[in-house]
């Protein structure tokens, strides 16, 4: 009998995947490698922002007031710290919701898992709403990606962060819809875990951006 020679762990009995050499989940290893890679992605963006800090000959500027010599118009420091502090808080809370969603899935508590997944996505979307508000008000005040170096590097850095949040929200909504349709089983907690790792990473990037871009003058 041919199959007799095959070690038991090769046959994928009952839909189970063969164990990995480290015992760790493949997707989780991949997401950590991805996060490592993202460190360099954001390091490049942040470096550029910092290198270009204070180099634009024309305003508006992030913190300092600038008077346009041509029109005489006075631009105040454009960053809105109170609003951004609130959105930072929102993103931090989304991370709390995220860990609660994960632990609910692990426990098999379908009611809370749905609530917390939805809450995480909602808080993420709220953060994006704040960002959309911030971007549009900057444009109204006269700062676009074309205006000056600060505009280019600010919008691209925070824009890429926002794009990551958007991807995360879509991911969360996908998990939520699966959870609503057929329920995420505790076996599938790993899928939520992987999404959570991504989500928290996006959060820590924001922690860095908030300090480096918004608070340091």
């Amino acid at each position, binding site marked *: *009998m*041919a*199959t*007799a*020679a*095959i*070690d038991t*762990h*090769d*046959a*994928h009995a*009952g*839909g189970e995947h063969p164990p*990995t*050499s*480290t015992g*760790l989940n*493949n997707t989780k*290893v*991949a997401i950590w*490698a*991805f996060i*490592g*890679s*993202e*460190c*360099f*992605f954001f*390091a*490049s*963006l942040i470096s*550029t922002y910092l*290198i*270009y800090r204070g*180099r*634009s*000959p024309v305003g508006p500027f992030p913190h300092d007031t600038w008077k346009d010599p041509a029109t005489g118009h006075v631009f105040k420091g454009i960053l809105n710290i109170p609003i951004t502090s609130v959105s930072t808080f929102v993103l931090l809370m989304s991370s709390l919701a995220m860990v609660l969603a994960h632990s609910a899935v692990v426990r098999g508590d379908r009611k809370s898992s749905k609530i917390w997944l939805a809450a995480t996505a909602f808080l993420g979307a709220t953060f994006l709403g704040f960002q959309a508000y911030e971007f549009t008000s900057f444009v109204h005040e006269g700062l676009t*990606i*074309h205006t*000056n*170096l600060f*505009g*280019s*590097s600010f919008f*691209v850095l925070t824009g890429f962060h926002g794009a990551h949040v958007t991807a995360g929200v879509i991911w969360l909504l*996908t998990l939520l819809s699966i959870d609503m349709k057929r329920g995420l089983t505790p076996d599938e907690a790993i899928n939520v875990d992987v999404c959570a790792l991504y989500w928290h990473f996006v959060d820590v990037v924001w922690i860095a951006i908030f300090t480096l871009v918004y608070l340091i003058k």
Partner: protein
Amino acid sequence: MATTVSLPETPHREPTHKYESGVWSWLATTDHKRIGQLYLYTSLFWFIVGGIEAAIIRAQLYNPNSHLVTAQTYNELFTMHGTTMIFLVIMPLSAAFFNFLIPLQIGARDVAFPRLNAFSYWVFLFGGLFLNSSWFLHAAPNGGWFGYAPLTTRPFSPGLNIDFWVIGLQILGISSLAAGFNFITTIINMRAPGMHFMRMPIFSWMAFVTQFLIILAFPIITVALTFLMLDRFFGTNFYEIQAGADPLLWQHLFWLFGHPEVYILILPAFGLVSEVLPVFSRKPLFGYPVMVYSGILIATLGFGVWAHHMFAAGMGPIADAFFSITTMLIAIPTGVKIFNWLGTMWGGSLRFTTAMKFAIGLVALFTIGGISGVMHSSPPSDLQQTDSYFIVAHFHYVLFGGSMMGLFAGLYFYYPKITGRLLNEKLGNWHFWLTAIGMNLTFFPMHFLGLDGMPRRISSYDAGQGWESNNHLASYGAALIVLGTIFFAYNWFTSLRRGAVAGNDPWGGATLEWMIPSPPPDYNFATIPKVTSRYPLWDRKSPELTVNVPHDSQDEQKMDVKIGGQSTGTASAPSDTKLNAPHAHPSARQLGIMMPTPTTKPLIAAFALGTVFVGLIMHKNLPIMLTAAAIFVFSLYNWLLTPLEPEHH
């Protein structure tokens, strides 16, 4: 050598679906060996294209004041030659080996994410075609392979040329990144029982290190290219000097990527020759752990030397000194490798097969390139050499003499595993000598040209500067390389049908890939082997070779029974006669092995993603971009929500 048996019949399959035969079976494949071959043939094709570009360059420079091509075309030629050879030849040819070999060497049935693997290939294919389609629009990139901004910003390079370059590299980067995560996970998680890290074949080790370089260096160029793309298409100011931008920003970001990139280009070749040399010396690799550690050290230090490409930019004494020192330091682990290869050959019973000759070629020629590298690690001496033909000589010794020689060694060595037949050694010998002599004839005189002041990237030069004879020699050498390549191509295609049948282990190899049939069945290993040392096959067939290699000896006794599915020709201790009978090549289905379902979803996703970029270059054509993006997202969902393997009943 087991070359007498007939070629194994293709595994018995019952094609029940169009994806299991013909063209569809390639379009829908998720088999790492097939994807490896797709990479292989695609990159060999680009090798010919890049070679033709080089040949035209050499024809142009043969005589002073020549007007074979215009200066404008010349710019396109050297830019596309460099970009092609780096991103479309050496990297994907290395990827062909990653794909084909990593799972075989670590004893796995496939990579960790087979469909992502297919996706990587299709994105790569798309990127290569995209980049080269520029030729047909008479708008091939013309800013040099490193595309210095602000030269490459819209005001200075208004045409489509640089658009093709920026977007093409961006697409190729996606492919490399996806493959990087995949191989890292594969190597961490898919090793056969007993395949500890310090038993892993050295090629897999170097491949592992390379993947980290890829996933950490490519994000940097992604960002730099994104800035350039935004500047060109959306009017941002990243490289606008009037807006206060720093002209060195691009250079720093590019070389932060660029120097790790050169190790991405060389480490896989190092890995290949580290497989070839022990086998043809009949000795274990000298200092295996040191080889591993020096590879890791090279990769880490490789992130701290980038500004040695910028000594001429005037960074100041502190920066110059710092990068000069780190560059000199990095030569140490590199030198260690060279001595270890010599130590491997020392006292061995050498067999000068073509693969071995190419491997020795790497050791000799890379060393020359390494030495000239150390020469320009000193800023005062670099100021004489930079932007001259001396640099061209340096990087061709490391890239052609190093990477390409190593990859050729790998091709001769693994051709039998890939195709089931051996390449012809006589033709291989011609190939090697023509290439080696031609290579030295082309690039050695360039050292003198450089020291005599000939700048790089000039489309013609005046007579009477003492550059004629060395340029003659270089062009003759190029002709020899072309001739050698013709031998190679002829050898390749005739051997596919007429080459000697290889058997499982034509060279007396030491690692797992030589245990299974050539070409391997789609599941690779009927039984996943249990590994007890670095050289499982030598333990079994020539234990005297591995007495000094660490094993755990109790396990070794069980080896014969545990080690594998197929007869290896000489010794065999089959645990099941039917399974291991010489000509039985049972299909995965017969063995009850579940393999991933073939699927074209990665192909669709890759092409949709590529089409988004096509829309971008067509003056930001929103309908195309949005439709393609929607198809991409849809196919991604479709792919991710479909299980990898057939549903279990």
